[in-house]
C-alpha cells in the first residue's frame, strides 16, 4: 500500500475576499465559511477566530483538532464520516501543514475538553501552541447534554472534520512543495533484506470505553466500542480512517490531528528496512470490563504471534483503568515471546508520589513515560480568550474544578488559572510528540 501526502506549508492564515491558498498564505472568506459550517442546522451560533503561535491567547474548551486536507481524486478525507466509505491509505492526499482546525465550545465544555495557551509559560504544555489554529467557536442545539459533564459534542466535532476538508479544497489541484511517501509491501512479500530484520508491530489502543455510542473514537465511521482488534495498514491511520472521540481526560487524548500525523508510526517507518521490518498496526481498543480487556489482549497477542512479530510497541489513549488494558496487552505479548515497549503517560498524583499506573506487571520492563496527568499547573491571565474561560472551572473538565478549599477555583477573578495537566489539550502527546518524560526527584 502506497500513500503520498503532498504538503503545503502554511506561513499565515488571514481573512479575505476569497478562500484560497497562495504562496504559503491561506485566505478564508469568513462569511462563506460560517455559512458552510451553519449548513448543519445543529450549529446555532458560530464564529471563526485565528490564533497564532506566540500570541498571549488562551483557548478553552477545545474539543477536537484536525489537519486540513483534501483528496485530489474526490474521495472523502474521512471515509464514513465526511463522505462515502472507501478504503483509506493509498493514493494521494494533500495537507495544509503547520495549521489545524480546532473545534471550540462558545460556552460549554465537557470532561474530555482541553485548554491551549498560544504563548507564555503555558505554551510548552501542548503541541498546538506551535500551530496556527483556525478555531471554530460554536454553540449548538444539543440541549440534552448542555449541562452534562460527559458530552458527545457531535455537532462541533463533525464541523471540525468538514471544515478541515473545506479548507483543504484550496489545494486540491495545486502542486505540493514536498511529498512524503509511505509504502509497505504486503507482509509476506518483502525482500530478503527486509525479512531478515526483526519484525515489529505497533499496537494502538484508541479510546472506546463509553458503552453509550457517539463518544468514542471511530474507525471508518464505526464506533470503536463495538469493535474487536484487527490488523490495519499504518497508512490507513495516517489517512483519515480514524477520528477522535469525546471522552478521555484531555492530556491523554489522541485528537484526529494526532492520528493524521501519528509520530510513532512515522518513526517506525523511518527505521523500516534499516533496523526493523515494520509489519503494520494491530488496531486494538480500550474496554470497561476485565473480560473485554483480556479478550482484546488475546486477540492482539495471537495476531502479533501469527504475523511473526519479534517486537511490539503498545500505546494507549488514556490512563486510569485503561492502564489495565495496556499492561495486560504488554504482558500477553511478552508471554507469547514478543518483546515489548510501552508508550503512555502516567498518573502519579499531584504529589508525584503515587503508584504511576493502576496495574503493574514486572513483564512491562520497557516503558516510555510522556507525562503526569495530575501535575498542577498555574498560569497567569491571558490577554485574549477564545471560547469561555469559566468552562474550565464550571463544566467538569478533567483537570479543572469550581471549588477547592486549599487551591480555590481553577479560574480566578483576574483570569489566572490553576489546573491539572489533565485538561491540557492532548498535553501528554502520547501519539509520540512528547519531549516530556518523568524523572525521580
Amino acid at each position, binding site marked *: 500500500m502506497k500513500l503520498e501526502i503532498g504538503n503545503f506549508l502554511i506561513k499565515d492564515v488571514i481573512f479575505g475576499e476569497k478562500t484560497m491558498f497562495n504562496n504559503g498564505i491561506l485566505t478564508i472568506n469568513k462569511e462563506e465559511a460560517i455559512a458552510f459550517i451553519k449548513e448543519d442546522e445543529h450549529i446555532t451560533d458560530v464564529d471563526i477566530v485565528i490564533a497564532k503561535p506566540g500570541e498571549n491567547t488562551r483557548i478553552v474548551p477545545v474539543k477536537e483538532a484536525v489537519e486540513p486536507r483534501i483528496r485530489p481524486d474526490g474521495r472523502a478525507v474521512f471515509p464514513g464520516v465526511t463522505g462515502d466509505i472507501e478504503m483509506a491509505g493509498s493514493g494521494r492526499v494533500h495537507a495544509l501543514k503547520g495549521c489545524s482546525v480546532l473545534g471550540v465550545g462558545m460556552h460549554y465544555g465537557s470532561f474530555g475538553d482541553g485548554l491551549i495557551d498560544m504563548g507564555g509559560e503555558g505554551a510548552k504544555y501542548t503541541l498546538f501552541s506551535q500551530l496556527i489554529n483556525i478555531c471554530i467557536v460554536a454553540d449548538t442545539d444539543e440541549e440534552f447534554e448542555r449541562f452534562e459533564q460527559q458530552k458527545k459534542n457531535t455537532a462541533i466535532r463533525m464541523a471540525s472534520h468538514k471544515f478541515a476538508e473545506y479548507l483543504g479544497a484550496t489545494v486540491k489541484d495545486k502542486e505540493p512543495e514536498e511529498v512524503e511517501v509511505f509504502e509497505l509491501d504486503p507482509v509476506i512479500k518483502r525482500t530478503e533484506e527486509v525479512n531478515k530484520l526483526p519484525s515489529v508491530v505497533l499496537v494502538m489502543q484508541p479510546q472506546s470505553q463509553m*458503552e453509550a455510542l457517539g463518544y468514542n473514537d471511530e474507525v471508518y465511521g464505526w464506533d470503536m466500542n463495538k469493535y474487536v482488534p484487527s490488523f490495519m495498514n499504518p497508512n490507513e491511520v495516517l489517512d483519515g480512517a480514524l477520528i477522535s472521540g469525546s471522552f478521555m481526560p484531555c492530556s491523554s487524548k489522541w485528537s484526529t490531528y494526532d492520528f493524521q500525523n501519528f509520530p510513532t508510526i512515522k518513526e517506525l517507518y523511518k527505521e523500516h528496512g534499516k533496523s526493523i521490518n515494520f509489519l503494520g498496526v494491530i488496531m486494538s481498543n480500550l474496554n*470497561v*470490563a*476485565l473480560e473485554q*480487556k483480556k479478550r482484546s489482549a488475546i486477540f492482539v497477542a495471537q495476531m502479533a504471534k501469527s504475523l511473526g512479530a519479534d517486537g511490539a510497541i503498545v500505546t494507549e489513549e488514556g490512563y486510569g*483503568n485503561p492502564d*489495565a488494558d495496556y*499492561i*495486560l496487552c504488554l504482558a500477553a505479548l511478552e508471554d507469547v515471546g514478543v518483546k515489548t515497549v510501552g508508550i503512555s503517560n502516567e498518573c502519579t498524583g499531584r504529589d508525584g508520589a503515587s*503508584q504511576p499506573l*493502576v*496495574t*503493574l*506487571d514486572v513483564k512491562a520492563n520497557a516503558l516510555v513515560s510522556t507525562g503526569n496527568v495530575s501535575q498542577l499547573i498555574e498560569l497567569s491571565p491571558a490577554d485574549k480568550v477564545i471560547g469561555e474561560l469559566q468552562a474550565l472551572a464550571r463544566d467538569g473538565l478533567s483537570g479543572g474544578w469550581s471549588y477547592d478549599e486549599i487551591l480555590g477555583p481553577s479560574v480566578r477573578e483576574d483570569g489566572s488559572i490553576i489546573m491539572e495537566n489533565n485538561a491540557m489539550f492532548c498535553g501528554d502527546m502520547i501519539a509520540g510528540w512528547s519531549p516530556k518524560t518523568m524523572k525521580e526527584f
Partner: protein
Amino acid sequence: MVKEIERAGIPVVLLCNLIPVATTVGANKIVPTISIPYPLGDPGTSWETQWKLRYHRVGVALDALTDDIEEQKVYKVKI
C-alpha cells in the same frame, strides 16, 4: 483505602471488576464484579437477574470476611 483499613486490623473484602488493579494495589480478599459502571447488576438484564447476581456476590464477600487466608485471594463466584 482497603490497605489502610486492613492495616488498622479491620478485615475487609473488596468487590471490584479490575482484579489486576486490586492485586497490584494489594487488597487481600477480592470478589470480582461484572464491570466498572455497574459492578453488581447489568442494566441490560432484568431486575430479578441483577438482584440474584448482586445478592450472590455480596454473599460471597460476607463469607470471605470469615475466611482465614495466608495470602491474597480472588474468590470464585457462581453468577
